[in-house]
């Protein structure tokens, strides 16, 4: 018998429920309003009073309305058929909802129970298995979707039987497992898991040792994101967070992309809905949508479900990681999630921390980021969840609580600068403030030496130094005037501008420039560095400026040209010629 209760108080979407039995923290319940049943989650219990946050509007709710507790926490359904779907924060399939408007209490099944999947067994009778072990696989688009021992099963089991190769629906019994006491457990393709608990079906979580290529030069070349790593993009509005995340979601070298639109604009999600089914993954030639799941809780959807949406996304990510896949989770924006926590905490009349955020904000964010990572699975294979979130700092001030808490948790920091955005230098990733801790990892350095070329990280650091020195030179020029400084200052400044325009800036709306593969990044970066290493004859500072402007123009055309095409090569030739004409000939002569 489940606990029931009656509404005894309403403050916006927080409802106080008098319960007639035991309730647990984070337990799900349904609040009835006429025929409508609205989902809610317990967030505080005082005596017999359960404080629940309702994932819907409480308009019209009355004292005495019925509440039924469910005896479990907020869960997601994990099974083949999650990819390509678009869910709300509570995993309702948005495509299956009737009507133009989302009516209250509407729920749809996240997966298709009728669909047939082509199953191939991987385990055989007699095998010893534990939670997360692979029993078989089905093909979900081009992802090999593993059917696993459900994560909730504790201890070890012996496989009694596995279904033969063939077509099955998700509710068919795919295997029978026997526990140590001889009890049989049938296993289907479906399992449920509470979103706020990390899935721990792995042996070990090592340090990341590879990078995740995104095709964005300012990230891959300058501050690479590790596979299984974490990063965040803070930036004031208009700095290009969303454009950058969309670019990464299209281009990243991942098997599965989970895009969490958390409290952001609906039109941005529509853009993904419209574009992704059309776009092809450059690596595999498959449609991008086939590897993508969208969790969408836009800013006008219920606030409480906003908080749930990031957890839903993370749990689905962990599920695919357990199949040995590379998962990339993008969340835009985690500040909206933090604000949802603030709204709840405020209504519960908790004592506030800084900027009225809850005191434990920092801990909540750290715990969440910690769920990402590279793992060794039970069978020795690896899987990873890479997490990249955006932060929308109030007033563009990076000293606010959400940015500061996230900075403690995430390893890559891509600060978007207002100044760069104002002068249309996109992506507006600030080359000075941004960092990737992974560049210091010996494992990553070693990997880059092999993947790109030996001593690559040293080249990157050289590039960074050049940018910094250019900025310092520019400050001097601004203080002392163009002719108040030696021409070397101009040389230094323009060399940094060359790196900025050619490497750091990238046109996300150009079909070719938008996605720059790592080989091309290497080529361009080395070409730019080789020019920065040269000395040139200038006829005054204006000559220096016009020389580099000419070069930048040629380089830009090169970035727009197809890799190694005739056009590309002709620009290269023009650059070589321009450089040769201006270069200081070494004493030996040539």
């Amino acid at each position: 018998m489940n606990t029931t209760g009656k509404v005894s108080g309403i403050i916006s979407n927080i409802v106080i429920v008098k319960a007639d039995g035991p309730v647990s923290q984070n337990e799900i319940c349904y609040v009835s309003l006429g025929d409508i049943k609205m989902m809610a989650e317990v967030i505080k219990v005082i005596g017999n009073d359960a404080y629940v946050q309702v994932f819907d509007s409480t308009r019209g709710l009355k004292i005495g309305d019925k509440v039924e507790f469910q005896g479990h926490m907020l869960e997601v359904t994990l099974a083949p058929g999650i990819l390509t779907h678009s869910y709300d924060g509570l995993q309702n399939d948005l495509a299956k909802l009737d009507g133009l408007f989302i009516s209250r209490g509407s729920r749809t099944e996240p997966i298709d129970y009728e669909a047939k999947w082509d199953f191939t067994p991987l385990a055989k009778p007699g095998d010893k298995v534990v939670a997360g072990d692979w029993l078989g696989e089905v093909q979900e688009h081009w992802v090999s979707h593993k059917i696993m021992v459900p994560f909730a099963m504790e201890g070890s089991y012996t496989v009694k039987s596995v279904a033969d190769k063939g077509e099955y629906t998700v509710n068919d019994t795919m295997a029978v497992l026997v526990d140590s006491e001889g009890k049989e457990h049938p296993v289907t393709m479906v399992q449920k898991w509470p979103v706020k608990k990390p899935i721990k079906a792995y042996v070990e979580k090592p340090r990341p040792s590879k990078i995740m290529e995104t095709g964005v030069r300012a990230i891959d070349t300058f501050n690479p994101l590790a596979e299984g790593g974490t990063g965040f993009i803070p930036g004031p509005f208009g700095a290009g967070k969303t454009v950058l995340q969309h670019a990464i979601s299209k281009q990243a070298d991942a098997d599965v992309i989970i895009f969490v639109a958390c409290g952001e604009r609906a039109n941005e999600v529509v853009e993904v809905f419209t574009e992704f089914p059309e776009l092809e993954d450059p690596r595999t030639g498959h449609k991008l949508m086939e590897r993508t799941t969208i969790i969408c809780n836009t800013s006008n959807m219920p606030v409480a479900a906003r908080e749930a949406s990031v957890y839903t996304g993370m749990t689905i990510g962990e599920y695919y990681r357990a199949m040995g896949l590379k998962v990339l989770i993008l969340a835009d924006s985690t500040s909206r999630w933090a604000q949802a926590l603030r709204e709840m905490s405020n209504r519960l009349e908790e004592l506030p921390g800084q900027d009225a955020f809850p005191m434990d904000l920092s801990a909540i964010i750290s715990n969440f980021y910690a769920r990402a990572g590279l793992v060794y699975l039970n069978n020795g294979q690896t899987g990873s969840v890479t997490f990249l979130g955006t932060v929308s700092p109030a007033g563009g001030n990076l000293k606010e609580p959400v940015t500061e808490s996230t900075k403690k948790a995430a390893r890559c920091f891509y600060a978007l600068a207002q100044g760069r955005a104002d002068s249309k230098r996109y992506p507006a990733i600030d080359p000075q403030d941004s960092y990737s801790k992974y560049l210091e990892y010996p494992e990553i350095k070693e990997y880059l030496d092999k993947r790109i070329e030996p001593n690559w990280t040293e080249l990157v650091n050289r590039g960074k130094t050049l940018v910094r020195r250019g900025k310092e030179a520019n400050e001097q020029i601004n203080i002392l005037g163009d002719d108040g400084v030696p021409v070397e200052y101009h040389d230094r400044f323009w060399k940094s501008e060359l790196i900025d325009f050619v490497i750091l800036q990238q046109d996300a709306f150009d079909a070719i420039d938008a996605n720059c593969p790592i080989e091309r990044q290497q080529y361009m970066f080395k070409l730019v560095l080789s020019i920065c290493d040269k000395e040139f004859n200038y006829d005054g500072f204006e000559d220096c400026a016009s020389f580099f402007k000419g070069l930048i123009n040629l380089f830009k055309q090169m970035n727009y040209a197809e890799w190694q095409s005739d056009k590309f090569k002709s620009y290269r030739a023009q650059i070589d010629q321009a450089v040769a004409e201006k270069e200081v000939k070494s004493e030996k002569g040539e």
Partner: protein
Amino acid sequence: METKAFQKIYTKIDNITKATVSLRATGVGNDELATVGGKLAQVVKINGENVTLQVFSGTEGIATDSEVIFHGEPPKLNVSDNLAGRFFNAYGEPIEGGKQLDGEPREIGGPTVNPFKRKQPSELIATGIAGIDLNNTIVSGQKIPFFADPDQPYNQVMAMVALRAKADKIILGGMGMTNDDFLFFKNVFENAGALDRIVSFVNTTENPPVERLLVPDMALTAAEYFAVDKGEKVLVLLTDMTLYADALAIVSNRMDQIPSKDSMPGSLYSDLAKIYEKAVQLPNGGSITIIAVTTLSGGDITHAVPDNTGYITEGQLFLRNDSDTGKVIVDPFRSLSRLKQLVIGKKTREDHPQVMNAAVRLYADAANAKTKLENGFDLSDYDERTLKFAKDYSEKLLSIDVNIDIDQMLDTAWTLFAKYFSKSEVAIKEELMAKYWKGAE
């Protein structure tokens, strides 16, 4: 609102604050309306039998024995085609005479459009103002505010945009509007012969501030009627959203909530998003486009209201007085339309994106040159040319009194490029240069 027979009348109010009253009552629904001493109020909190009501027009004169009647339903608006051409107050009651509205009663602040059912906005809204059409193109289904100082002519610009935008309906939501501004809008629409396309919901400075909270929801309920039911293109003008936020702060303060940044309620982001996200392109061809005004204090965009707005809306437009030309321009640096990428170079000429960026970049160089000049440094030849370009650009394109179509704007820009710069200084894709460059090689 007439009383219905079965309604229970309460006559004992326990607490009265400036904006709220509370009493013991049963069977009350959350968000439902009530009349308190003849004034309209809404339920905002229920704790057991203790019900708190927010009285829209303030609690002045309400006595502990005033009559409280619950209506049993949330605020509604009667929608029909007869809305067009009418002026209403925040409650949806006609002002300036005229009979009560008939039509289908609809709850205001209704549910959200399923994001999966939305269409991608793709229709350009031409305004003739180059600062908007060329640099910050607006698209139907977009939501975009003017960030303006109180002394700037934002209402005039907004009225101009509204009339040129070729919308089927224009819905004006006025919050804390001065009576003069209200009459200005009315005159402009009347003179343009557009009154039959206009619906207005107005809360003027003469009305109590808390009433404003109803205005956006009223306006958007009317907008949804025309867009969803009738498939029309609707333009909603909301001015001034800062005053709306002030009303939110007043209420939250009276309810003893802990304020967050700038004394605004912690839920400000969600409260504003609920309004702006009503902007939508619908599958039936109808659309709701929202153009709003957020007034700034001293140009400070880090204040909670413009800051949260910026994160919600799809860009923002800044007006600025250009000291070189003496004209009001749309600031090319700080203004942004996020949806422009959906139309520029697609619905407009192919050179649009690159011309736009090149012009803004050169204008930025002019700003640097100006700083140099102010600091007493010599200007290079290039600096001199950028300054001349900037003056022309500001006068012929950015100024809000320019009214030309987009092709003309692009041609003007190419002419200015050729007049002041070399090809490599303009740095546009070569294919486009070959086609549009207006000068010698």
